[in-house]
């Protein structure tokens, strides 16, 4: 005999449980956690290389790097004097359990701020709660003005959207006004910054916003 059973189970419940555990672990140690997400090549590592020395004036930092292969990114972070742990995974995103495994490597001397550089992917990482305090979507302007409407979830759930590679705008055929309007449409409440991580343009405003948010998180 066939029988229908009501289940009402969130599919990602297991990840959500791990994320809740992460949140508690971070809170007990006073760590503010920032998850940076973007498509591949948007400039996550470069943004970190340029932002870490500025944030580092106020807080001790460490970075979890996620990539399919190589520890090239962790090496780049270490070169600016910041501790880094590389995760290599064949997954298209980081999940809460992988992040805890990496965070525990800093247990002996925990940082005040932990950055997570997610796998380069504008879709999948948005579905996975890592127990972080802030979600940041990084987007390079050359990816096109229409993308926030095509991939709304990641923009929508981010506390902050950083538009990178502003120095390439004159060569890109992308209208910044149109891109800003599309970000604003799908994600009314995100803070938005336009920067060039390479030239340093706009970095100070983004770092000041981030430092302010980190201060508030750590005061809780």
């Amino acid at each position: 005999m066939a029988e229908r059973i009501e289940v009402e189970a969130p599919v990602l419940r297991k990840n959500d449980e791990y994320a809740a555990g992460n949140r508690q672990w971070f809170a007990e140690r006073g760590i503010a956690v920032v998850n940076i997400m973007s498509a591949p090549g948007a400039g996550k590592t470069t943004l970190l290389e340029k932002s870490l020395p500025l944030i580092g004036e106020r807080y001790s930092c460490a970075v979890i790097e996620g990539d399919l292969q190589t520890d090239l990114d962790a090496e780049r972070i270490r070169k600016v004097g910041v501790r880094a742990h590389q995760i290599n995974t064949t997954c298209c995103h980081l999940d809460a359990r992988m992040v805890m495994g990496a965070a525990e490597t800093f247990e002996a001397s925990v940082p005040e701020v932990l950055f997570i550089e997610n796998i380069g992917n504008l879709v999948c990482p948005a579905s996975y709660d890592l127990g972080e305090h802030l979600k940041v979507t990084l987007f390079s302007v050359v990816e096109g003005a229409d993308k926030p409407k095509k991939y709304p979830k990641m923009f929508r759930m981010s506390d902050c959207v950083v538009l990178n590679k502003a120095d390439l705008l004159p060569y890109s055929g992308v209208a910044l006004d149109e891109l800003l309007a599309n970000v604003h449409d799908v994600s009314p409440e995100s803070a938005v910054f336009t920067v060039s991580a390479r030239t340093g343009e706009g970095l100070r405003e983004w770092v000041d916003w981030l430092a302010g948010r980190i201060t508030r998180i750590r005061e809780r």
Partner: protein
Amino acid sequence: MHETGIAADILEIANAQAALHGKARVAEVTVRLGDMSGVVAEALEFAFEVLRDGAASKARLELKRIPVLARCNVCQVETRPGADLILWCATCGRPLKVIEGEELTVESVVLEDDE
């Protein structure tokens, strides 16, 4: 794409229900899938079919698509944003809250005994 991992999670939930209720087979799994869940229905269906195992090795996946529904907490007006996905209140100009369309939930399973 993460649809493979999501299909595996759905199958784990379905197989656990069969074990919990002492049933031999899962005939059907109904999943509510929001249009803004970030999950591609076709990719999920494909992954589910490939990964089906255990009591759910012949299960059918029923996807209930949920369109985006947003509410203005000031005007209490509910709207279904069109393809342009403007998530601002047309009346008062304040940001809208998405109240439906982000679902990724196993709603129910149909379980069967052996013949």
